[in-house]
C-alpha cells in the first residue's frame, strides 16, 4: 500500500496510508485529508488507488494542483512525487518499488475491486479533456462500466444512402459483419468491434475503382468509421452514423 506524507502550511507532518479506493483532499472537514488553508478548495483533489497503483485527480479546484511543480488535471503517481496544494505539500511513497517481478505475474482485477465511485470519477475526469474525435467515437463514456457488468455495450451504427434512386434508405449495422456493394464491382465489409465500426475493401485484387471514405480510396487495411463519414461504393454515396 502506498502512502502520502502530508506537510501542512504550519509545517506539521503526518502520514496517510492509501488504504481506501478514494482518498479525498480538501478544505472541508469531510475530506479524508482535510487541509485548513484558504487557498485550498472545499473538495480539491482525490487519490484513487487500484491495487498498488494510485492516481491523483484535481477536482476542478480554484487554485489547481501541482505535481513536482507542474499543473496537473490527472496524474498517475510514482514514488517520490510531491503534490502541492495551496501551501501544503504531500509526498507520495509507493510500495514495492522497482519490483521487476511484477512484470510477469498476471493479476486478475475482479469486478468490485473498482467501485462505482472510481468509474464515475474517471469518466468525469476524462470528459472535459477529451479531444473532439474521441468524444465522437465514445458517445457516452458513462455507459460502459469497468466493474460489475464489465462488458461495455457495443455501439450501434447505420448507413444512410445519400445519393441515387435509393436516397434516404437506411441500413442498420446490427451484424458483426455486414457486406455492402455490388458483387463483382465493389464490395466492402463493415465489422463491428468493441470500440466501433471498421470498413475494409474485400476482393481488392480484382483491380478497378476502390470504395471511398470521405473521398479517400480504401486500401486493404481496415479503417475506423466515425459519425458523418461518407462512404462511396459503386457510385452510391452513403453516410455513416452512430445511433447508440
Amino acid at each position, binding site marked *: 500500500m502506498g502512502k502520502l506524507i502530508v506537510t501542512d502550511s504550519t509545517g506539521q507532518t503526518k502520514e496517510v496510508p492509501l488504504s481506501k479506493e478514494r482518498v479525498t483532499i480538501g478544505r472541508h472537514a469531510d475530506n479524508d485529508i482535510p487541509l485548513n488553508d484558504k487557498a485550498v478548495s472545499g473538495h480539491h483533489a482525490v487519490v484513487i488507488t487500484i491495487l498498488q497503483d494510485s492516481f491523483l485527480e484535481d477536482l476542478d479546484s480554484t487554485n489547481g494542483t501541482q505535481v513536482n511543480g507542474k499543473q496537473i488535471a490527472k496524474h498517475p503517481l510514482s514514488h517520490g512525487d510531491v503534490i502541492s496544494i495551496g501551501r501544503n505539500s504531500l509526498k507520495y511513497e509507493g510500495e514495492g518499488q522497482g519490483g521487476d517481478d511484477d*512484470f510477469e505475474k498476471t493479476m486478475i*482485477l475482479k469486478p468490485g475491486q473498482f467501485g462505482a465511485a472510481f468509474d464515475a470519477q474517471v469518466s468525469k475526469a476524462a470528459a472535459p479533456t477529451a479531444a473532439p474525435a474521441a468524444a465522437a467515437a465514445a458517445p457516452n463514456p458513462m455507459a460502459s462500466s469497468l466493474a460489475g457488468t464489465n*462488458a461495455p455495450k457495443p455501439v450501434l451504427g447505420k448507413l444512410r444512402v445519400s445519393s441515387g434512386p435509393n436516397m434516404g434508405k437506411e441500413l442498420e449495422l446490427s451484424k458483426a459483419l455486414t457486406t455492402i456493394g455490388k458483387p463483382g464491382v465493389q464490395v466492402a*465489409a463493415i465489422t463491428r468491434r468493441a470500440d466501433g465500426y471498421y470498413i475494409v475493401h474485400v476482393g481488392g*485484387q480484382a483491380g478497378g475503382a476502390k470504395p471511398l471514405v470521405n473521398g479517400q480510396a480504401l*486500401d486493404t487495411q*481496415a479503417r475506423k468509421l466515425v459519425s458523418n463519414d461518407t462512404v462511396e461504393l459503386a457510385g452510391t454515396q452513403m453516410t455513416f452514423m452512430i445511433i447508440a
Partner: protein
Amino acid sequence: MALKDRVTTSLVSDVGRARTNNEDAVEQDEEIGLLVLADGMGGYNAGEIASGIATTTVLDVVRRDWKDLKRGEVDEESGYSAEALLLRKAVESAHQTIYQVAQSQPQCAGMGTTIVTCLMHDDRMSIAYVGDSRLYRFRDNHLEQITRDHSLLEELVARGHYSREDAQRLVRKNIVTRALGVEPEVSVDLIEDTVEIGDILLIASDGLTDMVPDEKISLTLAKLADNLDSAAEELVRLANEAGGKDNVSVVLARADASFARGRRWYERLMEWF
C-alpha cells in the same frame, strides 16, 4: 480440397527463460479450422490446469456441435454468425468447468485463464476471447491488432484517462479485467472479420506481445511469411532474447487459397441497394 489444404498453420508454446513450467496451452483442429490459445494463471500447477481445461473444452464443444451447425446463418437478435455463437458457447462451457474445479479443489483455488479462439470459415474468421491474449491480422505487410485486451490499461485508454502512449509507459500491463474461471459469470467478446488470400493470423500470449514490439513482429512475419514454422520459432526466439520473462505462445495461420463454401461469399451477395 479440404480446409487444411488451403490454410497453413503453425503452433508453438515455449516455457520462456524465467519460468519453470508452461501455463500456456495451444490447440487446433485443422479439419474444422479452429485455433485455440489459453494463458493460465494461478499458484502451483493451477494455471496449467486452467489453460488445459480451456483448450480441451473448446475443442470438444466445437467438434461435438460442428456437424449440426447451421453454418453461415446469422442470428437476427445478436447479429453474429452460428460459428461465432458456437465459439461463445464453447468458451462459456470452458469457463463453467474451470470455475467449478477452482471452487471444489483447494489446490486450484483462484486459478484462471485467458483465451482466444478463432474459427476460419467461408473466407471469414469468427473470434471469441477473454483476457489479454491477442489476435492480429497481418495483411499486405501491415500488422493489425484485431482484439482489444481486457486489461486495466485498455480500460483506462478507452475511457480517455490516458493516451495509449502514456498508458503504455505508466500503467502496469499485467492486470487483466476478465478471465475464465474467476467469477461465476464471464462476458465473452465476439468479433467477426474477413480473411483474404495471403492474410496471416497471429494469436499470441502476452509472453510474446509484452516482450517483442509490434513492429518487430510485423518485420518477422514479412520476412518469413512463406515459412510459418520458421516465423513462429523466430517470434519465440525474439521473446526469449528480450528476456523471456513469461511463457511464450504463438499460433499462426495463413490463408493460401479461398476457403469459401461454394463461390466466394461476396460473389453470392444480394444487393441491398
